[in-house]
């Protein structure tokens, strides 16, 4: 599969395909349907689409009501805005176990729009709320596979969808299973664990370092097949986690919690955004500045 596509486009197109088979799928927008790629759905299924306006809290409640009556609504906005509505997600969705899919786009190093628009704490927030599954596709194909699963289940879900354009690196044999982790590169020295668009950068970085380093993608951040993860971790000397998210509460925390819980005695280095807001710049320059491009990640691996 030799093509490039943004993860959000892959999501938006896959949603339309799934909606053809599943009539319960609805789309709910908060004045950002073009950016969040719900526009394809709105165009194809106008009667199943709802524009709520710039009112994310209301949109969350509306989605909850629709879902509790049998529908599978996808409510989308920028990840920073939608997951910022913590109490609404907590009470109207999670407490009710309302099967809403919350889609947060524009996560990580989004570019010149800067700090307020970029989701950097969303994984930490969402995984701390009960009853919610948290997924983040690492490539366009992964996005499609995750969408297939999400459209066949009725659990509250958070989808973290990046806007990054990714050159597809998974092959057709790849499939998504809830809880699953996939070892993209096998090794024995450092295990680099990543999620979302950073997986691609890690892959490029590792290939440029001459050592037996492995790469693990975690798309299913919650729930997570801990046994599978432990088995892989145990083959390696130490661990490096790489994420376009705060170093608090995200992927690095997930891995550290498991290493501690099962007393795996492995060193874990967490590489991500250091408890700060990002700057405005192009996504490429931002990746460079925060050492999250392949050069930066390569440096981190070499100095580890």
């Amino acid at each position, binding site marked *: 599969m030799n093509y490039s596509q943004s993860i959000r486009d892959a999501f938006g197109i896959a949603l339309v395909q799934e909606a053809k088979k599943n009539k319960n799928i609805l789309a709910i927008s908060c004045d950002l349907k073009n950016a969040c790629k719900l526009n394809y759905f709105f165009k194809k299924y106008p009667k199943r689409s709802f524009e709520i306006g710039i*009112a994310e809290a209301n949109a969350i409640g509306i989605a909850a009501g629709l879902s509790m009556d049998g529908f599978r609504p996808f409510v989308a906005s920028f990840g920073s805005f939608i997951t910022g509505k913590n109490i609404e997600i907590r009470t*109207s969705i999670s407490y009710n176990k309302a099967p809403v899919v919350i889609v947060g786009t524009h996560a990580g190093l989004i570019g010149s729009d800067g700090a307020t628009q970029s989701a950097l704490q969303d994984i930490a927030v969402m995984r701390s709320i009960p009853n919610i599954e948290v997924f983040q596709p690492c490539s366009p194909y992964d996005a499609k596979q995750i969408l297939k699963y999400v459209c066949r289940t009725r659990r509250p879900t958070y989808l973290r969808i990046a806007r990054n354009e990714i050159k597809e690196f998974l092959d057709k044999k790849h499939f998504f299973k809830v809880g699953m982790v996939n070892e993209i590169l096998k090794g024995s020295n450092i295990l680099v664990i990543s999620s979302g668009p950073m997986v691609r950068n890690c892959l490029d970085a590792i290939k440029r370092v001459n050592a037996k380093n492995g790469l693990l993608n975690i798309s299913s951040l919650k729930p997570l097949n801990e046994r599978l993860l432990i088995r892989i971790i145990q083959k390696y000397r130490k661990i490096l986690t790489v994420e376009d998210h705060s170093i608090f509460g995200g992927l690095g925390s997930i891995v550290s919690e498991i290493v501690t819980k099962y007393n795996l005695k492995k060193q874990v280095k967490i590489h991500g955004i250091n408890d700060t807001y990002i700057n405005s710049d192009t996504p490429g320059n931002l990746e460079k500045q925060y050492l999250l491009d392949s050069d930066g990640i390569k440096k981190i691996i070499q100095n580890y």
Partner: protein
Amino acid sequence: MLKKNDLLNIRKNILNSINHADSGHLGPSYSCVEMIYVILKKYVNLKKKFRNKFILSKGHAAPAFYAVLDHLKLLKKNELNTLRKFNSRLQGHPDKKKLAYVDSGTGALGQGLSVSIGYALSAKLKNRENYVFCILGDGELQEGQTWEAAMYIGVKRLKNVITLIDANKFQNEYSVKDTLEEINIKKKWQAFGFNFFKINGHSLKDIDNTIKKCMNKKINKPCVIYCDTIKGKGVSIFENNNKYHSIKKLSTEEYETAIRELSIK
């Protein structure tokens, strides 16, 4: 049939359940109990599968909801005594996962009207003529999300949401007036695109007739019913006394006064 005397017994059960739990929101349960009673007795048949919905957005009035469920014989015998207990279906605030009659869990204020919209849109998508009844507190109107929802209902003319406000004039700490005075409330709702009705929220007849009016097919706009109520209504020492907003165990004297006043004369 709607019977005034039913309310005496329901109020007694609210009091007993809270007293048994040693905590609970008494005043705000007493102010909206007639509203819940009329809605559940006449307009929302909780036993039916495809039915109208009821959302108690002011979830702290859960004891009133539970006592009406008990009156409708939807709870187990003595279940009211499990209020606020571990693993009880009757949690401090309504829990949909524990009690299936709850159409939405509430308690963090301001969210019920939005969830009501969701149910109302769902009914429309399914071509069902179902209504959603949502009770808000007057203090709760300070939550911004309520107005996001009101804006949507008004603009979209979502007539199958019927909004009721339990205007008991108090909130957790002080009176509404002393907290953030409610000004031009009628004009506010009208400006959002609603028909506004102000009624006596303790009159079963008024509640029933106004709901009927709101459900009339000829009505052109969505409706809000502003129910003028008394916090702690029904027991002289509780009425308009915010000390009884959320209570611990009552003294024997308070308890006996209440039971005496709630007994059928």
